C-alpha cells in the first residue's frame, strides 16, 4: 500500500506541477487538497478523510484569516451557534480537579495517540490558567481568575458554547470546536468548566 502510494505520488508531482505551474495562478482548493492527499498516507486513527474540509474550514483557509463575505460569515456563525448542545440536566459544572487534568493533557486524535484513551483539552498549549503552571502558551487570551468574572447563568452558557463551538462567537477562530468536533465529551467539558469557575480551582486563586 505504502509502496503504491509513493509511486503514485512521484507521478502526481510532475503532472500537477505542469498543470498549475505554467499558469502562474494560485492553485485552486481542489488541487491543494489533492496535493495534501497524494503526499500522505492514512495512519492509525488519522485517515485521509481528515483532509475533507467543512464549510467553515474551507471559508477560513486564507491569509486574511477571514471569510470573504458578510453573508457567508453570518451563515457560518449561525450554524455554529445552532450546533451547541447544552447539558440536558442544566448542570454546567463538574469536578475542577478532573478539569485540571484535562486542561493539562495535550494528547488526543494524533496518529501517535492511543485512540482508546480519552482526549485531552490541551488548554495550556494556548492559555494561561493556574498561577502554578508556568508552561502556558500565549496563542489564546489568559484565563487566569476566569471565575472571578462572574458565575451567572448567562456566563456559564456563554463559556459552555465557547468551548463547544467557538465559531459561534468569532468565525475563523483558531480554537478547536471541542464539543462539536467530538474532542471532549459532555462530562469532560463540565469538568473543564469547573476548572474555570470553581472558587477552589487554582485558576481563581489570587
Amino acid at each position, binding site marked *: 500500500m505504502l509502496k503504491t502510494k509513493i509511486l503514485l505520488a512521484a507521478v502526481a508531482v510532475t503532472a500537477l506541477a505542469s498543470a498549475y505551474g505554467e499558469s502562474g495562478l494560485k492553485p485552486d482548493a481542489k488541487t491543494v487538497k489533492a496535493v495534501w492527499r497524494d503526499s500522505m498516507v492514512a495512519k492509525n486513527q488519522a485517515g485521509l478523510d481528515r483532509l475533507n474540509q467543512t464549510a467553515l474550514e474551507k471559508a477560513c483557509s486564507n491569509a486574511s484569516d477571514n471569510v470573504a463575505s458578510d453573508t457567508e460569515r453570518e451563515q457560518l456563525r449561525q450554524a455554529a451557534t445552532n450546533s451547541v448542545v447544552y447539558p440536558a440536566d442544566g448542570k454546567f459544572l463538574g469536578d475542577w480537579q478532573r478539569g485540571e487534568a484535562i486542561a493539562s493533557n495535550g*494528547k488526543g486524535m494524533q496518529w501517535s495517540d492511543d485512540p482508546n484513551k480519552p482526549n485531552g483539552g*490541551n488548554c495550556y498549549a494556548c492559555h494561561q490558567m493556574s498561577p502554578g503552571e508556568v508552561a502556558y502558551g500565549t496563542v489564546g487570551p489568559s484565563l487566569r481568575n476566569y471565575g472571578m468574572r462572574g458565575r451567572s447563568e448567562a456566563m456559564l452558557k456563554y463559556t459552555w458554547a465557547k468551548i463547544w463551538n467557538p465559531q459561534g462567537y468569532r468565525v475563523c477562530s483558531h480554537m478547536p470546536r471541542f464539543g462539536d468536533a467530538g474532542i471532549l465529551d459532555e462530562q469532560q467539558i463540565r469538568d473543564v468548566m469547573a476548572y474555570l469557575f470553581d472558587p477552589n480551582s487554582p485558576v481563581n486563586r489570587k
Partner: protein
Amino acid sequence: MNRNRRGFLKLAGAAAALSMLPLKVLADFVRPKEAMAATDLKGVFASLGNAQDSDQIRLETPDIAENGAVVPVTVSSAIPGTSKIYLLVEDNPNPLAAAYMIPEGTEAFVQTRVKVAQTCPIYAVVEAGGKLYKTSRETKVTLGGCGG
C-alpha cells in the same frame, strides 16, 4: 536504513588503542558504593555520610528546564581541599547521578548535564578534608512544545 543501537567498540577490540590508559581506570572511589544504588536521598546520605550546609559551594542550574532529559549543572567549590563533588537529583530513581574525584591540580569545578525526572531540588555535595558540605537548588521541569 535505521541504524538502531549502533554497536560500540567492544572492550577487547579497544584494548590495543588504549594501551596508554589502564582499562579499569578507577578505583571505586565512591565509598560506600551503595550510594550509587540508593533509591532515595536519605539512602545516599546514609552511605556518604551527613553533609552540612555551605555557602562556599556554587551550584548553577536553570530555574526552568524545557524538559527533564538534559539539565545543565555547574558546580564549583571554594572550600579548601575539595577532593570530591557529588551531584544528586532528589526525585530521581537513584538520586546520586554523578561523583567526581578532583585530584590536586584540578579546579574544584565540574559542568555536566543530568536527567531530572520531575521538578525537585538538585544537590551538590562536596567532600573536603574528610568532611561533607552541601547546597541545593530547585529546577522546575516543564513541557516544551505542543504539549502532546
